[in-house]
């Protein structure tokens, strides 16, 4: 245990050298990045009806309907 603590603390003592934190992601979790079916998003995304995308879609439909009426 003492050896582990020393190693970890040694690693921890290095930040003075100007390291930048990074977002560690365990390889044993679901990988980040694209999915076979979900594409570039890497996930199937469900949005509530008041989302920005939903409002934009509704606005687009209204505009299109108005153009067709003209």
């Amino acid at each position, binding site marked *: 245990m003492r*050896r582990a603590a020393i190693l970890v603390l040694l690693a921890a003592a290095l930040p003075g050298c100007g390291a930048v934190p*990074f977002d560690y992601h365990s390889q044993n979790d679901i990988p980040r990045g694209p*999915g076979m079916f*979900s594409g570039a998003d890497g996930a199937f995304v*469900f*949005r509530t009806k*008041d989302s920005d995308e939903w409002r934009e879609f509704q606005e687009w439909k209204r505009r299109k309907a108005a153009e067709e009426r003209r």
Partner: protein
Amino acid sequence: MIRRKTLLAASLAAALTALATAAQALEVKLSGQVSRGVLHADDGVNDDAFHVDNDNSSTRFRFEGAEQLMPGIRAGLLFEVEYQSAPSNDVTFADRDGAPPSLNERYMDLLFEGRYGKLSLGQGDGAANGGVEVDLSGTGIAHYADVPAVGGAFAFRTPGGAFGPELGEVLSQQDFESRYDRVRYDTPLYRGFRVAASTGVKDTGDVREVALWYTGNYGNQGQIVAALGMSNEKVGGSPDDETTGGSVSWLHPGGLNFTFGHTRRDLGPSDGKFTYLKAGYKWDRHAVSADYAMGDDQNAAGDEANSFSIAYVFTPIAWAEVFALVKQAELDRPGASFDDLTFVMVGTRLKF
């Protein structure tokens, strides 16, 4: 237990409703993976092939979402379950497909995050979970500190065929208290450091954990991830179950990488130790590594178990990995003689 889960599910549902109401635009993501392999096991008496779910990273799916709850506070949820048919850590010659598949909880977690850190509530990682498993090798899908994830239920056999202890009983990585129903707090990141603390209930025990986590990117000198943790579980009438340990992994930009982990578990009269070493190399879409694990006194005083394995992982496309693993484990026990366990496994993980 069922009542507690019901309450938790009700809390999750209430929180989801609250989130949906409070947030301007709630977005929930569904993702998952299928992780399968073919395992050949040889215990010196029997040998056979098994179609398994790779317990290094099991077949699972998750829902997750996060939104602004109020100025400065972000709220989120994580719901993840696994579904394993013939888990690689569960199959044996006597039971070639393990327990019948079922949905097993992994995360049912609510998160609240702001400038003062992150609060997690529900079923999820204890503060130190994963603290002996940090690994930048790129071969975690094939092998990492959790040695029993592949072949953990196979027993060592005497030359006469008698059964000894299982691999998982003598060579556990002793990764603290894993996941349980808890409250957890993580401090904000400071120069790559954060402290995490959690308290909760696991089975019938009261659990407390604390851990220090670190990540640092040193540019040309590579990346380091490290963790140091401590856990304590109190079960009425039993001695405290205390684990201390940590791990560190370094990845050079050129691809060379090294990992070290160590834990010590004090459980009344027994005092189990675990040490893990790994060296690897990553290039393009390939990664190779060799690891060596030692477990002392985990199942009985005087036990000395170790395993050596080599692995290769190929990532042809971002959502697919293919791997091969060869592993041999041995157990020295005073007054007894056991044959080695040998495993060969090939498999794949596809993220959908």
